[in-house]
């Protein structure tokens, strides 16, 4: 069941990712990106990281992408015109892709990629079998082990907010 769901949503994520690049209209691309993020949230859920899944939906698929869509609508951006592809891409595009995929499959076969034994469906637990993906566990980690990075990030965001306010004030 887990494997089927994983394959389904991984396929959706990849399909949306390809669609994001192929589409010419910015709105279609933005919607595809939402699709990628939603599918990723399901993958987080499959791994047992519930809080991450919810945060992914609220922050990325919700807040950030709404802003993207909002700006695209506000600017009323139309579809891109198809131009002739660059000669460089014409010549080297397909060989480079084949080479890259070959390299990846070679690495997988030789087991030279980072080991993934500890990644299990719903098995995001510590040594004692306590779940690490719940809101409680994430909160605990943020306010004890990772307090400094957390505070530094919040100050960074505060600076960004202040910058936005200063920039906006000039206009008024």
């Amino acid at each position: 069941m887990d494997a089927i769901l994983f394959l389904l949503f991984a396929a959706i994520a990849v399909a949306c990712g390809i669609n994001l690049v192929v589409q010419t209209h910015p709105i279609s691309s933005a919607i595809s990106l939402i699709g990628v993020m939603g599918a990723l949230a399901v993958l987080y859920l499959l791994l047992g990281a519930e809080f991450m899944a919810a945060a992914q939906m609220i922050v990325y698929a919700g807040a950030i992408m709404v802003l993207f869509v909002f700006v695209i609508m506000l600017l009323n951006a139309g579809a891109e015109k198809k131009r002739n592809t660059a000669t460089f891409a014409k010549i080297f595009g397909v060989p480079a892709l084949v080479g890259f995929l070959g390299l990846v499959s070679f690495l997988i076969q030789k087991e030279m990629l980072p080991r993934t034994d500890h990644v299990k469906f719903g098995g995001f637990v510590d040594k004692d079998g306590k779940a690490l993906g719940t809101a409680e566990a994430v909160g605990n980690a943020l306010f004890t082990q990772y307090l400094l990075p957390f505070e530094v990030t919040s100050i960074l965001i505060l600076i960004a907010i202040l910058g936005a306010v200063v920039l906006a004030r000039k206009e008024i």
Partner: protein
Amino acid sequence: MEFFIITAIKAGLVAFVLLTLAAYLVWIERKVLAHIQLRIGPYRVGPHGLLQPLADLIKLVTKEGVMPAEVNKFYYLLAPFLAVALALVSISVIPFGRQIEVFGYKTYMELADVNIGLLLILAISAVSVYGIALGGWASNNKYSLLGALRSSAQMISYELPMSIALVSPLLMANTLSLREIAEAQAGFYFSVIPKWYIFQAPAPQFIAFLIFLIAAFAETNRIPFDLPEAENELVAGFHTEYSSMGFAAFFTAEYVNMVTISALATHLFLGGWNPPVVEPVAGFIPTLIFFGAAFFLFFHGRQSVATRTWDRFTFPVFGGVFLGVGAVFQVPMLKEALGPLFWFGAKTGFILFLYIWVRGTLPRFRFDQLMSFAWKFLFPASLVQLLVTGLVVALKE
């Protein structure tokens, strides 16, 4: 396998009840609004217009669905589907009552008890703006686009105070599961004042409730915050170009969202299914209310006005139904399941009534007022409220 069957049955039941409720909410809204404005409201279809929702449904289904020429077809068709689907999903984590036993099978009166229940509702409400935004954009109409833009801006802005306001009950309950939050509010102070979070130590929870309620009005695009569909500025806003079932989908989504958010407010602040008075008394109140309504109807059925001849039949019939319902609440087997359901429904219904009441009372905001209200008043107020609550919770421990 058993799990799937039970869940499918429950999902079907919840969807049916919810959609019927949404349809009748429209009838109740029209009735209440009419009485606020000294009219009588729907009256022709069925006794007291009770079959009006059915008539509306038939009308909407049989009308021609017009698709304008220059729309973006894919998103134009996707948008109403998205709106109604997301609205229906978020009800799945809301519990309606305690554990019940049906044919020897124990089950909770909810579809799914996930331990991130509240976050799930927030996530879905964050995504549900796309239905409106895409619908307005794909219609290729300036009014629709303006409605969609207003709606996105409004929903992003009001989501902040709403999320912050609902953190304070979470702080006090120390869980994200809505069932546990509701159970944490059981009990009474001096066996008079219920321990609902709205009454809890000291005032800030009432403020949180108010902030949540105001933001909820904006999130569901209701008067006084219905700028996305302000009919005297934007024709009908984001759903101007939708007819037939497309329009019906947006309409249903709005009412289902109202029900969901009222249920959420009930769980977070009004004690979920916990009765407002101590137990032996609380068990008789539903029966008393229904019996009272029944006798009221019998009384009025006897002396109905000559122009309303139907009342002679319909009033006693409904009186009989109410008597039966009131008696059911005293059956010992059903009492445990129905009691919580009644209180939960009553509180949710009260908030829904509040929606209609406000619609009949307040005029619409201007868009800049709406924005400055959210960012300059509601957001700082919710932050201060959260700080105070956090301090109180920290001092208690």
